[in-house]
C-alpha cells in the first residue's frame, strides 16, 4: 500500500487542492476549487486547525492520498516523516509513505475570480501532482 502525503505549511488549501487533483486528474481548476471549498466547509466548518494529517481518498492508481498542514517547514517535515515511515513500514506488504515535494503557498485571490497569479499557482499544483503520481507509479512497480 502506498500513502501519498500532500503537505502545505500553515494553510491547508494547497495540500487539499493537490489531493483532489491527484484523485480526480481530469477536473478543471474551477471544479477543483468548488470541491475544495465543499470539503473545507464539510470537514472543518470554517475552523483553521494548527495541525492536521488526514487520509483524503483513494486515487485511481490505488494510492491512499492524505493531506496535512502544520507549522513545520516542508523540508524538515519531509525528512522526519520519511525517516519514520521507513521505520514503521518495514517488511513486505507494509505501507510506504511518499511525501510530495513542497507545495507553493496559495495566492490571496485563490477563492476569487481567476487571475494570472492563480493560473500560475494551478500550473505549479498540476506539475507537482503529476510528478508525485509518476513517483507513486514507480513505487508501485517495485
Amino acid at each position, binding site marked *: 500500500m502506498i500513502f501519498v502525503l500532500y503537505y502545505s505549511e500553515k494553510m491547508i488549501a494547497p495540500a487539499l487542492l493537490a489531493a483532489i487533483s491527484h484523485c480526480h486528474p481530469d477536473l478543471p481548476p474551477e471544479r477543483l476549487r468548488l470541491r475544495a471549498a465543499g470539503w473545507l466547509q464539510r470537514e472543518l466548518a470554517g475552523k483553521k486547525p494548527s495541525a492536521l494529517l488526514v487520509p483524503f481518498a483513494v486515487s485511481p492508481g490505488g494510492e*491512499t492520498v492524505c493531506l496535512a498542514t502544520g507549522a513545520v517547514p516542508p523540508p*524538515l517535515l*519531509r525528512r*522526519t516523516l520519511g525517516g519514520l515511515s521507513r*521505520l514503521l513500514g518495514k517488511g513486505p506488504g507494509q505501507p510506504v*509513505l511518499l511525501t510530495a515535494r513542497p507545495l507553493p503557498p496559495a495566492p490571496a485571490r485563490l477563492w476569487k475570480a481567476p487571475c494570472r497569479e492563480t493560473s500560475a499557482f494551478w500550473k505549479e499544483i498540476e506539475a507537482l501532482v503529476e510528478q508525485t503520481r509518476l513517483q507513486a507509479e514507480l513505487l508501485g512497480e517495485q
Partner: protein
Amino acid sequence: MIIIFQCFGGTHTSVTAASIYLGKLPRSRIPRLEELLDLPHFDRVENADIGTLNYLGRDRRGNRVFALGSGRWSAAIRELLPPLLQLYGPEVPALALIDCSSAVTWPVRLGGFLSRSLHCIDPGRPLVGWGILRNYRRLLQLAEHFEADPARYLL
C-alpha cells in the same frame, strides 16, 4: 518500541540524554568533557540535516533509540505524529518521544550556534560540552524518568 530523544538540533541534549539511557554515559558521576565530546553523534549533525532521525543504538530490551532535531518546531512535529501513526494502524511499534529542549541552556545554545551554524568548532564544541555537563543532572533525570515511566512518553 521506537524511542526518539528530541531537541533543537538533535545533536546535543538529545544525544546526551539518549547516551545516558543507553548506558554510554555514566549515571553515578558527571562525565569528563572528553567522554562527552567522544560520542560519535555529539555536536556532529549539520543544521541542514535537522529533521533526520539518527540511530544511536538499541536499549537493553532491544528497542531502537534515535535522536531527532526539530528546530523550533518540536511541538508542531509532535502534533503531526499521532495521526501519522494512526494511518499505519495498530500493528506498528509504539513510539516514545522524549523532548529534551527543556535542558537547553544559554551556553548550549551559544556553543551549538558557534559550532553548527558558524562552524567555529574549536570554541563552540567545548562550550556546548561545558554547558551540557553543568546541566547533566537534568538530562540524567529525563533519561531516568523515561525509563521509570515510558508510558507517559508514548504518542
